[in-house]
């Protein structure tokens, strides 16, 4: 028995001794150091694969990947690998809305019902207007609680067949298939923050109604194609499956049977793109709205979008202090998907990271890449 206790003590000593290594600051603007940090973060977070890009001004200063897009088939993750990016998709919605705002086809302070084929009313506050600005700042009082109760996901590599118009009608209008009072929170519109996927998708419907174009086609014509985002779409039907990263819901299951899925409110999360493509969109924001010779948005519009309210939200974009620096950002999380996009408008630098596993947001990795972008 005493020998057993001695053995335990020896092993514990070994562990404690090894945990007392000296700590020191490293310079992640050096290629070799950054690579060591990336390798470490990649391994300790058990990522199946990831791709990343760091940008400075309108240039890419670093773009690379690690691991696998498909572990079972040993398919390497590359910066050209396509992946769903979850909630970062909402920045596309905001861009489309603000484009229509710029040309005077809508006003972000108007009642959303001006632009809809059905009427959206919070049953707890039937006389209060819901404006586009409220939807853009997640203060509209439209709630995802009801969606959480009746989440609709179609498993398989096929697009959800229902239009966003029909789905939102069913969700938000009394008598609709998914309607309940819980589709709204019991707070006055505009008064409190409640992150809402449904609210964001309602904005995409506004884009459809005002532009007279299907949302995906609008984005293609006014955002993706002018910026040269040739590997970007919302739909599986327009994406070769072999170019997709497998989203790994559970890192202990690296050969999932049916990893892909779609849902009716696709504008709020189902953008399929690559880090290379998305960096063009990010660089347009960094460069006062211009990339590839195309004016995506006016500088004054971007300024408006990046003006924080009391919840640190601009218009869809939100601001955070990360490692003592204020950045504008959006991230994304879904089954098998973790994504981050952030930029600093002062230094005109930014990063994008795609990781094909659930719930993985390694801040050390993000900050190291951002430091590299600033060098």
């Amino acid at each position, binding site marked *: 028995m005493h020998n057993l206790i001695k053995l335990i003590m020896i092993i514990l000593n070994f562990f404690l001794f090894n945990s007392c290594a000296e700590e020191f600051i490293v310079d992640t603007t050096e290629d070799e150091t950054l690579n060591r940090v990336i390798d470490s973060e990649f391994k*300790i977070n058990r990522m199946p694969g990831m791709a990343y890009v760091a940008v400075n001004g309108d240039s890419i200063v670093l773009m690379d990947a690690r691991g696998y897009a498909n572990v079972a088939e040993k398919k390497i993750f590359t910066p050209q690998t396509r992946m769903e990016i979850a909630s970062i998709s909402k920045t596309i919605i905001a861009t489309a809305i603000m484009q229509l705002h710029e040309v005077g086809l809508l006003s972000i302070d108007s009642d959303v019902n001006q632009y809809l084929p059905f009427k959206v009313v919070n049953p707890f506050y039937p006389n209060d207007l819901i404006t586009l600005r409220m939807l853009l700042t997640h203060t509209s009082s439209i709630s995802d609680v009801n969606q959480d109760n009746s989440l609709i996901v179609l498993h398989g590599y096929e697009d959800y067949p229902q239009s966003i118009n029909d789905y939102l009608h069913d969700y938000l209008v009394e008598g609709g298939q998914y309607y309940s009072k819980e589709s709204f929170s019991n707070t006055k519109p505009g008064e409190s923050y409640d992150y809402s996927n449904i609210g964001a998708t309602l904005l995409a419907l506004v884009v459809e109604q005002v532009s007279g174009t299907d949302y995906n086609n609008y984005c293609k014509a006014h955002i993706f194609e002018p910026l040269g985002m040739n590997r970007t779409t919302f739909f599986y039907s327009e994406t070769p499956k072999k170019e997709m990263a497998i989203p790994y819901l559970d890192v202990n299951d690296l050969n999932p049977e049916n990893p892909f899925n779609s849902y009716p409110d696709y504008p709020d999360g189902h953008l399929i793109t690559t880090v290379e493509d998305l960096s063009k969109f990010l660089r347009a924001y960094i460069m006062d709205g211009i990339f590839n010779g195309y004016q995506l948005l006016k500088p004054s519009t971007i300024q408006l979008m990046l003006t924080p309210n009391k919840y640190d939200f601009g218009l869809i974009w939100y601001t955070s202090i990360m490692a003592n*620096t204020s950045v504008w950002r959006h991230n994304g999380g879904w089954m098998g998907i973790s994504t981050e996009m952030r930029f600093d408008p002062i230094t005109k630098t930014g990063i994008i990271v795609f990781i094909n596993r*659930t719930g993985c947001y390694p801040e050390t990795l993000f900050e190291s890449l951002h430091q590299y972008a600033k060098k």
Partner: protein
Amino acid sequence: MVKKIFFSLLFVLFFIATKANPADSLHLNNIGITLGYWGTPAKTTGFQLGLQKYQLNTEKFKILTNCDLVVEKRTNSYSSFGVLLSSGVRRTFRFGLFMEYNIKSGYIGSYYPFDLYKINSNGDVMNIGKKIYHTFVFGNSFGFGYDFYSTTKMDMQLFLKPVLYYRYPNLDNPFYLNNFGLEAGITFHPSFLNKKD
């Protein structure tokens, strides 16, 4: 539903065990040594070594406690060392077959053999060296085995027990914090551990 059945079964087992007559106790060889595989099937490999003691030892029921050292390794990643304490109940059927349930808690430390990094309060990236991640473990196992004593009077048991355990903090998926493990091995009761006064 599965949880309800599981806990109902557990409750029944414990209830029956408390009704076992201690007067029927088999007082010989209450302390044993367990040796076995411990790890996540096909993902990590490891072993366990521990001591087992019967707190109640009758022909049909045993209430037992274990103290196990566990070691596991994940290729190209971490090596773990842990101490787990468990307590459970065993129902032995005819011919020596038994079912057993245990609850477990303890410590597992995972050692990463490469430098780790973190951000300090000034926003600097720090090399913090090779570190151990300390985790608290809570779990349970429900398995079966064979007790040779019933048929051969040889005081030895084979066991196979799937384990569900929760590790906190945890670097795995936040939505699936439970880890799955497997204990498989042998328990024997050497005479030097069971000397009688």
